[in-house]
């Protein structure tokens, strides 16, 4: 089913806001306000337009930004967690591991072992290319992995 280009343009504005400031809190009502629609309508139409629910999209932006900071700066991991919108280091570390498969420290070590090639591509596209593909919810992913481990154990 098609969506109105005018509505999509307004949904894109909300997506742009998350892209521009992923460290900020983006409760649905705030995003809906940017798009000038009701909260329920926003959630439904955003998912339909961009294929992921708004908060999962935000999560991918935060992880991608955290990854870039781990790679490009010497900031302590606690500082990176705060700068990318998490209120606790524990939550950041757990979700980061769930999504990327490694801890922030491991990612930092790995990213630094390969040379960085970013000069010839606009940064926003580079960032997009580095964003994790969260086609399932993090909790769901965790559950599947846990059940996979259980199966291995029973074998």
């Amino acid at each position, binding site marked *: 089913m*098609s*969506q109105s*280009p005018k509505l*999509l343009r307004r949904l*894109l504005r909300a997506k*742009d806001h998350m*892209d*521009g400031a992923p460290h900020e809190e983006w409760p649905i009502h705030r995003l809906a306000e940017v798009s000038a629609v009701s909260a329920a309508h926003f959630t439904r139409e955003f998912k339909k*337009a961009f294929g992921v629910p708004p908060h999962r999209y935000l999560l991918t932006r935060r992880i991608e930004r955290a990854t870039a900071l781990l790679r490009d700066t010497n900031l302590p991991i606690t500082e990176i967690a705060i700068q990318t919108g998490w209120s606790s280091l524990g939550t950041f570390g757990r979700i980061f591991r769930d999504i990327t498969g490694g801890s922030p420290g491991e990612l930092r070590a790995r990213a630094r072992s390969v040379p960085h090639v970013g000069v010839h591509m*606009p940064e926003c596209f580079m960032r997009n290319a580095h964003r994790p593909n969260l086609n399932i919810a993090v909790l769901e992913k965790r559950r599947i992995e846990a059940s996979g481990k259980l199966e291995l154990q029973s074998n």
Partner: protein
Amino acid sequence: MTQGINVVGLYVRDQDEALAFYVEKLGFLCHTDVRNGDYRWLTVQHPNQPSFQLGLFKPGPPVHDAATAQTLQEIVAKGAMPPLVLFVDNCRAAYERLSKCGVEFTQAPVDRYGTVDAGFRDPSGNGWKMIEVAAKQESQ
């Protein structure tokens, strides 16, 4: 004899709106604006770049059937069209000027890789990166 790209087109939602944006806000000039029935061939040009035209085209008949036109409009409005890059001599000054006239910036100027860049969208949703020409590139 020289060879090179002469016209590259963008899809826009509304050609009048796009023309106003590219001419009045970004400082392009209208190069060609001709119609054949409902079809309108519209291009703009930067005054400093006379060999290149940017086409502002609306998806629709006779080029596209209605369903394809709708899909293209949706893709444009979701910001999914390919990247566009605008070079400027002073990114921060251009940002100040363009923000004041209501250009929708998605990223304020940032120092990166020895130059400065910012991001904005046209009214239809096409995303532009605005990059300051680095001194060493100018001398090339």
